[in-house]
């Protein structure tokens, strides 16, 4: 394994040079979105400068090179997550879109009254609400895998929730609010023993650790481009060929059809069956550059570096009097959520911002998590490969200063 040259990596991200409120930017809100390397920014400019054209339609030259570039991304994603076929990679708007697609289309065909859908207590709202919506339509029941005080899923409880009524299991790989890495392989194997498919929300995982969909044997996997150094407005739904062929299409429109008459429409084959309308072409094409960037560093190198940084940040933050880390699972990735006794997370976030430090505060779109810990929210520092120990030091100093003002 190589040691990453973080100084050189930082040079790749132009925004990291800017100041905020007169202080050097310390960007620790990577769980919300990562910054973009110059290679991605250049690819975006290049797309509009050199090849802008609609995809999968025109016979003219520009449409062909756009289409080719779009399809290069699909194959790059296939390789990146080690999917068996490129047509198992559906290009969507993002994780939320991907999950909604599965909840709607799988739900329409396979979920009936009295059936059960299993999610977990640490899901992002985007992996709760779509399932609630389909359960409501179908009269099905949403079951929730509880979690422990340390923020780990209660696997015994999960086993007892699984039954012949279970129609699908949907859990995240890494919790956005707590940083917990869930034992997804075990979750999938247990579900498969009852022939139940599993959707994994990998929005907070794909940029931090190696994912091999065949090894996981996962049925559906969702993630977003903008959290993996790529552009906004593009995401991926991986689905096993068999499932994608069996579930009905999501939206109707151009590109997803084979033949349309007023009597009957036949649908296009995979992956186009699920890609109605003009996609976000720019983002679809330039996601390729983001994956190239991750590959150039090596995802295992990224993981090793971020894990070390997470340990350092955890140790250093615990120096702050009254600071409590929310989410202390054994297996964690890149996220530290915390509260400080006697302070509101919002107050700490505002003061850190004035020191040029970007963190997220609040419930992180995971209100049930906050409810379990009986807190209004947390301060969340989330790491990317360009963050440094010096930035963690700045965070710790900033938190200490804020606490002095607030308590």
């Amino acid at each position, binding site marked *: 394994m190589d040691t990453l040259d973080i100084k050189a990596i930082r040079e790749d991200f132009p925004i990291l040079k800017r100041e905020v409120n007169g202080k050097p930017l310390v960007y620790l809100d990577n769980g919300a979105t990562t910054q973009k390397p110059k290679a991605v920014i250049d690819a975006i400019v290049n797309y509009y400068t050199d090849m802008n054209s609609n995809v999968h339609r025109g016979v003219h030259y520009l449409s062909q090179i756009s289409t080719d570039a779009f399809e290069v991304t699909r194959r790059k994603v296939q390789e990146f997550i080690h999917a068996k076929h490129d047509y198992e990679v559906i290009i969507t708007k993002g994780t939320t879109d991907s999950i909604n697609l599965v909840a709607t289309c799988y739900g329409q065909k396979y979920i009936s009254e009295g059936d059960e859908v299993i999610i977990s207590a640490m899901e992002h709202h985007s992996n709760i609400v779509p399932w609630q919506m389909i359960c409501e339509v179908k009269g099905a029941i949403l079951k929730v895998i509880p979690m422990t005080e340390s923020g780990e899923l209660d696997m015994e409880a999960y086993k007892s929730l699984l039954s012949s009524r279970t129609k699908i299991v949907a859990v995240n790989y890494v919790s956005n609010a707590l940083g917990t890495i869930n034992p997804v392989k075990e979750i999938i194997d247990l579900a498969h023993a009852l022939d139940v498919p599993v959707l994994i929300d990998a929005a907070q995982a794909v940029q931090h650790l190696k994912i091999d969909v065949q090894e996981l044997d996962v049925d559906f996997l969702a993630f977003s481009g903008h959290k993996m150094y790529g552009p906004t407005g593009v995401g991926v739904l991986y689905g096993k060929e068999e499932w994608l062929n069996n579930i009905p299409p999501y939206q109707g429109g151009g590109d997803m059809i084979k033949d349309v008459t007023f009597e009957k429409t036949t649908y296009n084959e995979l992956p186009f069956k699920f890609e109605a309308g003009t996609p976000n072409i720019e983002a679809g094409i330039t996601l390729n550059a983001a994956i190239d960037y991750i590959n150039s560093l090596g995802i295992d190198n990224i993981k090793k570096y971020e894990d070390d940084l997470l340990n350092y940040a955890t140790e250093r933050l615990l120096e702050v009097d009254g600071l409590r880390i929310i989410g202390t699972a054994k297996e964690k990735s890149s996220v530290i959520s915390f509260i400080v006794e006697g302070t509101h997370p*919002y107050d700490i976030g505002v*003061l850190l911002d004035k020191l040029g430090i970007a963190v997220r505060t609040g419930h992180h779109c995971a209100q049930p998590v906050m409810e379990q810990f009986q807190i209004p929210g947390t301060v969340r520092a989330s790491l990317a490969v360009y963050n440094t120990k010096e930035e963690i030091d700045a965070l710790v100093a900033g938190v200490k200063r804020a606490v002095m003002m607030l308590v």
Partner: protein
Amino acid sequence: MTINEIQDELIEDFSFYQDWMEKYEFIIQLGKELPLIDESNKQDQYIIKGCQSKVWLFPEMKEDKLFFTADSDAVITKGLVSLMVKVLSGHTPKEIAAADLYFIDQIGLKEHLSPTRANGLLAMVKQMKLYALALSAKAS
């Protein structure tokens, strides 16, 4: 003092602080001067829900003037609430409804008034004016 005189005084107070952290220390300090809402009035109907911090705001007419008491679970929000109460409380509903709150921009806190901010300050200003509008309509 009129609403504008109070605003001008606050603008002057804030001009002493150059550094952002000093400004916020002053805001936190102002929070401690907020006339607190009676605990019995901390009911759902008086909550102004920002995304992250809670604000309670209670209106009360005394003779022809509208007074506010309030509270928040976050210290900085409480300071911002205190600023608004300082400026608007104790004036006639008509004056409050018509007030142009130029001081927020001038003391550099305009960012807190954007609709997406998490502290609910904009929602609070709106609510104070709504109370005032309703009461001035009633009076006329």
